[in-house]
């Protein structure tokens, strides 16, 4: 049994806005094992990014606030660490890549400079060592003429190459965990395929654990071993990847899968569509947050928010209904 690397318990994050306090993450618990790839799926505003940003304490405060929870990483609670301590974890042991590589890179510094900085900062390398290692990293992520390209600025790189640079940067200190926040969303599909392929290769070579945040159930199917689906700041379904797609059990997951056309679809049919729009929660609901959009919703759903409970081995859902029968579970 592989060791648990990251153990998050009861995480709650809120944001103060002019319209009220938004409950972005509502008591999320999960763990990540060594070498595992966890997919986190949900639509915009479901709390998938905020959850991971909270774990790394990258939430701007105010308006954001981590209201409760624990996040153990090698026995230490990341949420209780001093700023100095968490800085050493970020980048060195847990690193993150973001959706838009252009805004994550500094446009006035060369790629080389930006790659070398964390190496000198976290690993205490000399300038020369950092340069050699940067060259190595760029070649590792598949950028030709790496040494020459260190002198270039971000705008001289294409979108796909910038994302490669971000990956190189994130891996520069050999982290145990890589958090990838929609890393391929801004990219074209052929470039997306290049990047997911690269990450899979690096995962096998370096053996790190990955948290892959995305709205795309297709991408997750190809890369994750475990998947959790989020809605309204809650995990509403969590399972091994094959079981999730073979037996989706939460009405929301079912709806999401049904609303996706497939490139290998052979017969034409109308797409299943979930009516309404994802919620913004100003208070912790005491009903199921999905009930207003759920076609299976029954009385109980409007009285009590369902907890995350097992329906099969390593497969949990937060729902009162058995979607196969349409009756209470």
């Amino acid at each position, binding site marked *: 049994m592989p060791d648990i690397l990251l153990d998050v318990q009861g995480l709650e994050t809120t944001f103060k806005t002019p319209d009220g306090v938004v409950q972005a993450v509502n008591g999320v618990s999960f763990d990540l094992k060594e070498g595992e790839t966890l997919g986190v799926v949900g*639509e*915009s505003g479901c709390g998938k990014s905020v959850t991971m940003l909270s774990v790394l304490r990258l939430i701007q405060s105010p308006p954001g606030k981590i209201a409760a929870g624990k996040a153990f990483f090698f026995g230490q609670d990341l949420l209780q660490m001093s700023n100095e301590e968490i800085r050493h974890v970020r980048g060195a042991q847990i690193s993150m890549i973001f959706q838009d590589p252009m805004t994550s890179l500094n446009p006035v510094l060369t790629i080389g400079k930006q790659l070398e900085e964390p190496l000198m900062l976290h690993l205490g390398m000399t300038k020369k060592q950092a340069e050699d290692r940067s060259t190595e990293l760029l070649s590792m992520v598949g950028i030709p003429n790496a040494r020459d390209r260190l002198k270039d600025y971000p705008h001289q790189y*294409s979108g*796909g*190459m910038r994302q490669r640079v971000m990956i190189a940067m994130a891996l520069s200190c050999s982290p145990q965990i890589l958090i990838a926040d929609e890393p391929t969303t801004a990219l*074209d*599909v*052929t*470039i*997306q*395929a*290049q990047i*997911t*392929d690269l990450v899979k290769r690096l995962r096998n070579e370096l053996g790190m654990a990955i948290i892959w945040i995305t*709205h*795309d*159930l*297709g*991408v*997750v*199917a*190809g890369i994750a071993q475990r998947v959790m689906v989020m809605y309204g700041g809650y995990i509403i379904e969590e399972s091994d*990847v*094959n079981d999730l*797609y*073979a037996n989706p059990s939460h009405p929301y997951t079912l*709806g*999401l*899968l*049904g*609303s*996706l*056309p*497939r*490139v*290998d*679809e*052979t017969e*034409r049919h*109308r*797409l*299943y*569509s*979930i*009516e309404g*729009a*994802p919620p913004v929660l100003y208070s912790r609901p005491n009903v199921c947050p999905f009930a207003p959009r759920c076609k299976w919703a029954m009385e109980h759903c409007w009285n009590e928010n369902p907890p995350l409970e097992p329906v099969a081995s390593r497969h949990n859902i937060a729902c009162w209904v058995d979607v196969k029968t349409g009756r209470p579970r």
Partner: protein
Amino acid sequence: MSNNTADIILKVEDLKMHFPIYRGVFQRQVGAVRAVDGVSFNVMRGETLGLVGESGCGKSTAGRAILQLYKPTAGEVNFEGVDLIKLRREDLRKMRRKIQMIFQDPYASLNPRMTVEQIVGEPLIVHSAATGKEVQDRVEHLLEIVGLNPAFATRYPHEFSGGQRQRIGVARALALQPSFIICDEPISALDVSIQAQVVNLLEQLQEDFNLTYLFIAHDLSMVRHISRRVAVMYLGIFVELTSRDELYLNPLHPYTQALLSAVPIPDPVVDARRKRTILEGDVPSPVNPPSGCRFRTRCPIAVPLCAESRPEFREVKPGHFVACHLVK
């Protein structure tokens, strides 16, 4: 499908759209972005023609050049037998009643200072299609058609979600009862669960009003779902055009094959079994496209001939067009 010429609603011939690049003190033209570089195709009445390609391939520019939002550099755009490029301003304006557009970004394409009623009613007023109370009635009816509560007519765009805004955009496009709608990435800014709502709406409207769509998108799964025929664009040209099933089951152009194999399938078992072709590198610049076949720099099967001459976009099977030297 192509044997009945009477059914052709739009005929595009060798359409080119080049954007000049000026440099230096005297602003001399030093080159051009060849965004669309000679495309020819027909759209049949009542069908949906999907137009797919990656960013920068010219698909949106092609859509805009058809609608004369840009003045095309060369070519012909015959809509119901009239060449739009040759039309005078006033005649073109009248023609636009029949061709409408739905835009990608439902946030940027609606004026934030206008109410929904003003937005949807504007085309009616501009084209003198209705006046006074009639406008109000028509707007209410249009909102009902697209699944919005007519009572919301006095609200502003910011009061709506992305999916609802896109419905407002659809209502505006429908106001003048067009026969042809260019949908430029109408769902790519929307969440997954909302995308299906809008696509289903578009399909329903097509049935109800016998609309013809040119559906521009980068999402191949969605294009496959909605289209009857699909055209694949690469660096300003069409590389393949055929019926949806033929394209997906029997793609002939190496670019189409790679593109299809790169699309993730939301099923881990199927996905793991697939053979994938991963293209190397990026799309070259349209300012200085490769000689001969434009795809040759990334093509896994390119031969010397591909650098020498541009492959003709030819019909290799009935209704199946492809631009590749190596396809027999």
